[in-house]
């Protein structure tokens, strides 16, 4: 049996400043199998694969291919060994065409001049063989996320890779697209390629993988045959305890309308068309409304327009009866809007400020914290101390910790604390649990539900279907800048949601009611 291993990563250890990302991890990949790599965010999956792909070098341990020890110092070495990778965040040059992206780094040339035709023919061959449809002359910025993923897959085939790494490939796909991808993965396996499939979604592993290696906090928990295991066992291995996946919450008790959006359109930053088209919906006090959809269908722009980061090109936004369509961000905040932003490090925090300075980021101008323009440092300190206590924000030096040195989970907790503690009627939260571990996810979900129970209106944008199904009282689906359906999480299924998300299905009835 041992001869069958095409790749063996033995006793890999990798230490980053302050964290052991991989601690004596071993992973063995058989030829022709689909091998899942399971673990929570931060468990060390990506690091392990980056080592295999040559982006990082292990501090100790060895990698073998077909039993022979190999050194992988850079992606070129990995490529020479037939190892290819589809990264979680696609590594595509947006202003290049599909063709240029696929051949980049491995260009056919004559005297240094590019031979595009040669590359084109080669790509077309693979495209037809596996049914991976792409438009070679389109710019990356103009094509859908699904097609971008096909470009990444073609990049591997173009390089004749036989070991294919997929890093969280399903996060950006609709359920139907996920089915297609799995079929392609099976096809690859049948044709003798070996696949490593990184994910934290158990259903997908059960559906497609042959074996599964589980990582937890940088350590290898074990490798199991999928035939001999269950979802529950895998989740126990991943988290280290039993987890309840559903959020405990009482039925919603919606009150009056807090946020009302009518015929809203928002321009796109890249293209001439609108990213959000003619969108109308309401959010009431005491309910959680989720906006579901694949990333890139206008959710970001919608939130930017609601929160004032971008100007809409048409329509109105009303908050607590006030038209805030053209109001400043500060004004929206005063009217009662709290905002947990999508990118916590870009928008949510000033990483070089201390924790206490960040906790007053939305309130430093209020009389409580300043007197004639001079900051009241004592008030700031006692306020920060209270929030740190109440929301259990852990940090090295308490209020004076530089936020940059805090963990992602605690950074997010700081934002949640700040936005929930602020006087608000509406909470807009975008991807509030992205990149967090299960404990932090549970915590933040609980906070969101209790905010709802306190009578606030909560609007959540999420790309995670499970999260959408678990936490929402009402689901709005966005597709290509429009709201194409309104669903009740109690009566709908993931499959139905998927049909809406992919644009295959739409209901116009509900939309009419807002006209």
């Amino acid at each position, binding site marked *: 049996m041992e001869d069958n291993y095409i790749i063996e990563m033995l006793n890999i250890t990798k230490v980053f*400043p302050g964290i052991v990302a991989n601690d004596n991890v071993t992973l063995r990949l058989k030829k022709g199998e689909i091998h899942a790599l399971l673990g929570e965010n931060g468990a060390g999956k990506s690091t392990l694969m980056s080592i295999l792909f040559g982006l990082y070098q292990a501090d100790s341990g060895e990698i073998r291919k077909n039993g022979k020890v190999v050194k992988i110092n850079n992606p070129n070495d990995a490529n020479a060994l037939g190892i290819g990778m589809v990264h979680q965040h696609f590594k595509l040059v947006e202003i290049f065409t599909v063709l240029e992206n696929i051949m980049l780094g491995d260009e056919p040339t004559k005297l240094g001049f590019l031979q595009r035709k040669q590359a084109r023919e080669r790509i077309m061959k693979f495209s037809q063989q596996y049914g991976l449809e792409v438009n070679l002359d389109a710019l990356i910025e103009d094509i859908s996320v699904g097609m971008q993923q096909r470009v990444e897959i073609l990049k591997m085939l173009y390089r004749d890779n036989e070991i294919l790494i997929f890093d969280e490939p399903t996060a950006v796909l609709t359920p139907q697209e996920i089915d297609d991808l799995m079929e392609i993965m099976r096809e690859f396996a049948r044709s003798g390629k070996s696949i490593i499939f990184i994910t934290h979604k158990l259903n997908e592993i059960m559906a497609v993988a042959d074996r599964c290696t589980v990582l937890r906090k940088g350590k290898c928990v074990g490798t199991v045959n999928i035939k001999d295991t269950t979802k529950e066992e895998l989740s126990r291995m991943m988290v280290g305890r039993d987890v309840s996946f559903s959020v405990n919450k009482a039925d919603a008790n919606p009150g009056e309308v807090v946020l009302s959006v009518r015929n809203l359109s928002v321009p796109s930053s890249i293209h001439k068309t609108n990213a959000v088209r003619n969108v109308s919906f309401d959010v009431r006090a005491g309910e959680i409304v989720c906006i579901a959809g694949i990333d890139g269908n206008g959710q970001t722009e919608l939130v930017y327009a609601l929160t004032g980061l971008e100007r809409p090109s048409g329509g109105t936004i009303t908050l607590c009866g006030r038209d805030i369509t053209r109001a400043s961000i500060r004004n929206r*905040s005063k009217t009662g809007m709290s905002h947990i932003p999508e990118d916590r490090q870009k*928008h949510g925090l*000033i990483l070089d400020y201390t924790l206490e300075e960040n906790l007053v*980021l939305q309130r430093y101008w209020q009389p409580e914290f300043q007197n004639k323009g001079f*900051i009241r440092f004592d008030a700031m300190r006692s306020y920060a101390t209270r929030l740190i206590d109440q929301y259990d924000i852990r940090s090295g030096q308490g209020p004076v910790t530089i936020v*940059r040195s805090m963990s992602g989970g605690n950074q997010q907790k700081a934002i949640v604390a700040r936005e929930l503690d602020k006087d608000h009627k509406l909470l807009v939260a975008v991807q509030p649990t992205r990149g967090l571990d299960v404990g932090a996810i549970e915590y933040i979900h609980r906070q969101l539900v209790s905010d709802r129970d306190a009578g606030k209106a909560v609007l959540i944008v999420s790309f995670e279907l499970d999260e959408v199904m678990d936490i929402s009282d009402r689901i709005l689906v966005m597709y290509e800048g429009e709201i194409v359906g309104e669903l009740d999480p109690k009566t709908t299924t993931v499959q139905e949601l998927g049909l809406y998300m992919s644009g295959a299905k739409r209901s116009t009835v509900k939309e009419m009611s807002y006209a």
Partner: protein
Amino acid sequence: MHNESLSKKNVFHLKKITGSKAFSTFTAALLAILLGLVFGFIVMLIASPPNAVPGIFAVLTGGFRRIADVIYYATPIMMTGLAVGFAFKMGLFNIGASGQYTMGMFFAMYAGFFFNLPRGLHWIVCVAMGMLGGLLWGLIPGVFKALLNVNEVITSIMFNYIGMFLVDMWIQTTPGMYVADKARTAYLPASAQMPSLGIPNSGVNISIFIAIAIAILLFIVLSKTTFGYELKATGYNRHASTYAGMNGKRNIILTMAIAGALAGLGGAFAFLAPSSIPGSSVTYEPINVIAPNGFNGIAVALLGNSSPIGIIFSSVFISHIQRGGTQARLFGYEYEIIDVVISVIIYFSAFVMLMQEVAKKALRQLLDSLKRSFGKKGAEKASDAQPAAEIMAEPELSEVEKEGQK
């Protein structure tokens, strides 16, 4: 053993000091200065080998013989340094201090020549006018940046040229301001000159106290007020400051206007200075050259780590070696040697982070070796054990440091 416990305590303190941020910035600045001077020395060696040693000695010590002049010349660059440093705090690179300085100079001089005001009030109005001129010239890049998204570096540079051409033209075409046969501005009336401190043969005047007061005021604004909070927040993370509802556009314009006003004051201070010879004053020669004091301000700001208090000291230092540079002339070196040294200092200040690391390491090694040789006197054997103990303690600290620098 008794020796060891003592030195451990010592090590702890040293680490506390060398680990602090302000200290490492300081050592980095020293390192940049050192490299600049070494480079200057090499240039001097190439240019004229036998004179290099006395030449560099003159650069280093020349200023001590003319302390009043050092102070006098430090004042304008303290102001341009503040103009650059203040904008830096907001993440803006105000390379346009030269134009703002020149504009401030013109406004101040114009008021000096043509405003008829009583003694005691006249110079104050002139200073205020200088501030206004600089403010206007700083406002423009601010407006271009805030409203039209034009990079402030390019705008500032273009307006350095436009300002310089404008001022030179205005001066040459304003009768009463310009003496054509000398190709220089006329002498300012005595009432427009700033009160002298009365040091013979020197133009040093009360502007140094105004400048220091302004620096302290800026320090308070930056560290104690909501405006300072917003300004630094924007400098650290523009996106987050927008998200928090800060008025980014207003703050950009305001910051650039303030920076311009500071540089304009520099121009006013430089040219409203009293002359040691009665009846004369500092004059300006309109020869289409961009004011170097704006660029000196960049060096001052970088060496002072953009901190108003740091800038007080760095401006005095730059002024000191500039005065030294005039002494190097005695050994056949042109004054420009100092400009070379200053630009090399700017160059090395650009990789502060790296310099801090290098400086810290070098300093620690120095302290360690000092300690080791010191310890050898008492017990030969213990000297080997001590460094090992330190290395053990190292990882803890470096982790914190690295996190802080991410």
